[in-house]
């Protein structure tokens, strides 16, 4: 049982870390990639918590589709949170 506990704990930490990162990151692209990581951790968690259907849905929707619509929004608007720095840094 302990390795399940370990897995769950690890994924939960990843989840919180990614959420904090997504909120604090100024670069919206990185925040969007971080939501991809949230989705990754959630997929794993749902599988560990015996919900493969939900894991599948989260994987299917969270990984590619949410990313693309966020990225297209960023492309059409701005990439940085405070817009003084509109030029691309990287």
């Amino acid at each position: 049982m302990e390795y399940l506990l370990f897995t769950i704990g690890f994924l939960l930490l990843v989840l919180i870390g990614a959420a904090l990162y997504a909120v604090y990151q100024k670069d919206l692209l990185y925040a969007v990639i971080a939501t991809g990581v949230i989705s990754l951790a959630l997929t794993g968690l749902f599988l560990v918590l015996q919900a493969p259907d939900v894991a599948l849905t989260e994987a299917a929707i969270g990984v590619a589709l949410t990313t693309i619509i966020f990225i297209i929004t960023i492309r059409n608007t701005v990439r940085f949170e405070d817009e003084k720095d509109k030029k691309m840094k990287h």
Partner: protein
Amino acid sequence: MDTAELIRLGVYGTSILLILIGLYAVLTKKSLIKIIIGLSIIDGGIHLLLIGIGYVKGGTAPIFSPGSEDAVARMVDPVPQALVLTAIVIGFGVTAVALSLIIRLYRHHNTLNIDEIKNLKW
């Protein structure tokens, strides 16, 4: 404290934290996209919470495969899973609509800062 209790506390605590983080983003962030990211984080937290209440220690997924008919007693509650399935899809629909509204707003105002988009009284 046994394993099941720890798992329970961890999952619930994390979902609460996620909801709080998302709410923080929605309430304080200036960028509209950040607000939507916050909303999707809240959604994630709620989905995790729902799955958490359905979990049974040492359970298995509520899917019968040949040879596992005896596992009925160990199966986790299927209802929250069905609810989450619905909620995820609905959340995606709302996110898509919100992002398209953001694109429209940017077209008109040329900014995403919520303080500068204030033609209507907030």
